[in-house]
């Protein structure tokens, strides 16, 4: 064929390509009406994760929660949930939800990568970009796993109060460790912090890398704090960032480590 003979073919190709792309991208694009939770917007994703935690707090079914979380392919779900708990706490979300997220973070922090430990009982469908026949996500009956929680009715009591002089801490902290009667760390316990101009609260288990029963609060120098485990009757008063001496005799504000334990039931 001569060079001129190719010209109409090329012109047709270009026009056809343009029409095809316009049709497939603008007029009739692929519709993702059957999406996976993983494709959701960040705020919806956060709500979904919070819902997974709330469901877990009720059922105590960790394999099922892990299967649900695995859809999102989070590299470190324990940290994701810790951060989510802190965000939701700051947003003033219901306490039941925040506590559930803290429990979820603690439960995940106590285990290896959840993606590797998805239950073989739970069949989670892989995300599919094209409309397909819906695939079953089987929900097996809950196995007898329990959400870690303190023994009902027994208030926590102060076991130990220790001044901590650690220059590596980012701020003077009130560090709290909560353990049950058997000495096991208890996540999801609410701690109330009160000072003369305000109050705040935090939960244990939000930093699972430091222990499931651990929680902390950054103090402001010169302010005196009272700390109380919620539902406990004995507040710890007069906590302030006391001076500590570093290696070169330089002064820095110290922290407090409070250990609470649930007494054994008679």
């Amino acid at each position, binding site marked *: 064929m001569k060079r001129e003979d190719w010209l109409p073919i090329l*012109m047709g190709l270009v026009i056809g*390509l343009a029409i095809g792309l316009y049709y497939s991208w603008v007029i009739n694009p692929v519709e993702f009406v*059957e999406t996976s939770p993983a494709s959701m917007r960040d705020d919806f994703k956060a709500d979904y994760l919070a819902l997974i935690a709330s469901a877990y707090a009720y059922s105590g079914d960790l394999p099922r929660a892990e299967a649900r979380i695995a859809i999102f392919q989070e590299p470190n779900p324990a940290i994701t949930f810790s951060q989510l708990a802190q965000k939701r706490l700051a947003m003033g979300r219901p306490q039941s939800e925040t506590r559930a997220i803290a429990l979820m973070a603690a439960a995940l922090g106590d285990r290896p990568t959840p993606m590797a430990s998805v239950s073989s009982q739970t069949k989670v469908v892989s995300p599919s970009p094209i409309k397909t026949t819906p695939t079953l996500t089987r929900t097996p009956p809950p196995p007898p796993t329990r959400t870690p929680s303190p023994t009902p009715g027994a208030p926590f009591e102060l076991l130990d109060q220790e001044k901590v002089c650690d220059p590596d801490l980012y701020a003077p902290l009130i560090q709290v460790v909560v353990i049950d009667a058997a000495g096991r760390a208890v996540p999801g316990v609410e701690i109330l912090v009160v000072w003369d101009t305000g109050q705040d609260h935090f939960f244990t288990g939000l930093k699972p890398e430091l222990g499931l029963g651990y929680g902390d609060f950054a103090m402001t120098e010169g302010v005196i704090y009272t700390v109380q485990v919620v539902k406990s009757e004995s507040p710890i008063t007069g906590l302030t960032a006391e001076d500590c001496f570093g290696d070169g005799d330089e002064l820095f504000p110290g922290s407090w480590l409070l250990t609470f334990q649930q007494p054994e039931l008679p």
Partner: protein
Amino acid sequence: MSSTTFRLIAGLIIGLIVGLIYGWVLRPVEYVDTAPDTLREDYRADYVLMVAEAYAGDGDLDLAQIRLAALGPQPPVDIVVEAIDYAVKQNFSRPDLETLNRLAIQLRSIPPSPEIGGP
């Protein structure tokens, strides 16, 4: 038909096919920021089950309704009934069905909101 017209039409058809394959298969429009109301049926049923489980734990019916509202404009009870239908078809476990059913019962017990502008 002249050979020029024939070539133009042939090129057009080939270009159209290539464009459609590229736009629909090779590089389709990506929806990355979707909402829960577009979830696939199985995920949707699992979402409702999670709402029911969360409700069973915290007893907060308002929160359950807010969570269900993310799935679309239908009444929350209808969303739960749809999920129950799916769960029955897919042989969900009995405790799961009971959890869903309890939420449906609670949602049905809510009195309908009074109409504005009535006599």
